């Protein structure tokens, strides 16, 4: 059961930056909207009051964690919409609907590789916390901004983790090499990835190559978040479009045809 609720902002905590208004990377803590259940990989649509009529869409964000008290998101400010969100203050109200979409599989006894690109690390926070056998998890984190800008340390404390920074375009090769090497070691395991489209395309390629069972979480632009507008679709390998907000955001790598469109 999805809920659409007005909830209070508990805190806006910038990551790795001074506590100024409008941070670039931040954790947004909200009152729990009263959900019965949720699963890591699912997302919410979020709309601050300050959107007014100027922004007709809410914005989708992965659920980083949700407990009885609080729903936590991890957000990077990239444009006008996330700028409004970054300017939120405790006590402000936002509209949230969710939990939405599919989630990452959890197989406690399978060796599971978590591949996160940038803010794509968000869903893995809850995934790691809620996983019954964390020893079976390993995180690879590829990032551009300083690692302190992301909740990487929190995760590195919980699971085996390594990271690779892509400060310049030349560093891309080492990201790809690391992805290749790790995925090759998980041919009989589970590979779960979340990050920008080119990152996912690379992961998919190696996963299919090594026959690893692999799930990808996509981040297409969304208008409704509930399957109504058909604006977020991604083509399946069968040529049929899949709605990322309902049939995804988490897909089995072999089901979808990545690389087309933006």
């Amino acid at each position, binding site marked *: *059961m*999805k*809920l*659409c609720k007005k909830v209070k902002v508990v805190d806006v905590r910038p990551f790795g930056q001074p506590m100024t208004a409008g941070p670039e990377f931040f954790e947004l803590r909200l009152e729990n909207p009263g959900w019965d259940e949720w699963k890591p990989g699912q997302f919410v*649509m979020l*709309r601050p009051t300050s959107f007014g*009529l*100027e*922004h*007709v*869409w*809410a914005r989708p964000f992965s659920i980083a964690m949700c407990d009885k008290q609080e729903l936590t998101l991890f957000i990077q400010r990239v444009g006008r919409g996330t700028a409004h969100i970054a300017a939120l203050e405790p006590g402000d109200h936002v*509209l949230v*609907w969710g939990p939405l979409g599919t989630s990452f599989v959890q197989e406690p006894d399978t060796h599971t590789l978590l591949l996160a690109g940038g803010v794509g690390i968000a869903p893995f926070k809850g995934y790691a916390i809620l996983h019954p056998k964390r020893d079976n998890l390993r995180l690879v984190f590829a990032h551009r901004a300083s690692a302190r800008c992301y909740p990487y340390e929190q995760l590195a404390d919980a699971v085996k983790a390594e990271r690779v920074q892509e400060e310049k375009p030349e560093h891309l090769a080492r990201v790809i090499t690391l992805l290749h090497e790790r995925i090759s070691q998980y041919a009989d395991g589970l590979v779960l990835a979340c990050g920008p489209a080119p990152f996912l395309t690379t992961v998919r390629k190696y996963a299919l190559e090594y026959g690893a069972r692999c799930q990808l979480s996509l981040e*297409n*632009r969304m*208008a*409704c*978040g*509930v*399957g*109504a*507008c*058909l*604006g*977020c*679709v*991604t*083509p399946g390998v069968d*040529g*049929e*479009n899949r709605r990322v907000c*309902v049939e995804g955001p988490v897909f089995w790598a072999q089901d979808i045809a990545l690389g*087309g*469109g*933006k």
Partner: protein
Amino acid sequence: MMDTTVRLPGLTLKNPVLTASGTFGFGLEFEDFGDLRTLGGIVVKGMSLKPRQGNPMPRVAETACGMLNAIGIQNPGVESFIKNKLPHLPWEDTAIIANLYACTAEEFGELADILSAEEGVAALEVNVSCPNVKEGGAAFGQDPVQIGRVTEAVKAKARNKPVMVKLSPNVADIGVCARAAEAGGADMLSLINTVTGMAVDLVTRKPLLANVIGGLSGPAIKPVALRCVHQAVRAVKIPIIGLGGIVTARDALEFILVGAHAIQVGTANFLRPDAAFRLVQQLPKDMEIIGIGSLDELRGTLVLPGA
């Protein structure tokens, strides 16, 4: 109790609030956010004879107080709608209106034939105005002669189901198009469909829609929609259903003031998924605030200067 019933030719709505085609899926997507049976009606996603995958991605973009779309009528086809969607919809309680999309008058007739045989379909809305798809809609919607022909073709196969023709605002004179649909036998009109528009990305130097051009909707176009409804109301005798940028109950009442019989909620469903349900709840309250006991007291009472 506030009376919000709307009587249209062959169609009675418990309230004037319909959801607009393409913005409310097949209705079922919104079941968690409100009781579908409280809506006056649901106009489902545009459908064609055969399934369509629609246009390439990206096909939506946000703009100031609005959005562009070039979905290209992705839909599972009319048969799948009848088999997989209609039975799950509360059609005994709420008017389910099918939105027909085709590229020739003959295909429109075929669609009307299939859909009008369904008990669960309360009315047919004819999309002659989709500006997104090169092969069809646009040409129809901007040409009064084609509007007339398509309307006749649908009416000929519509059995006892009322036919509503949906007009495009991308014309020099909406009154001419409205009269063409009326002359073709339309029972009512709905307007407006989206306004043709475009957006680009300075960094990639690409259009934000793969289709380049798309349809603008949302609060940005409300003034255009009110103007079109105002002009259409004066051009024809058949009832008009107004839409375009409606978010609040007050917006809805503005369209009724201008002369609309009912309204549709489109892009507002993206602002929040309970938008249409909330509008239904708020409507009687706002009617009370402005001091009317029924919609008839307001409808078309716009005071024109010198009148």
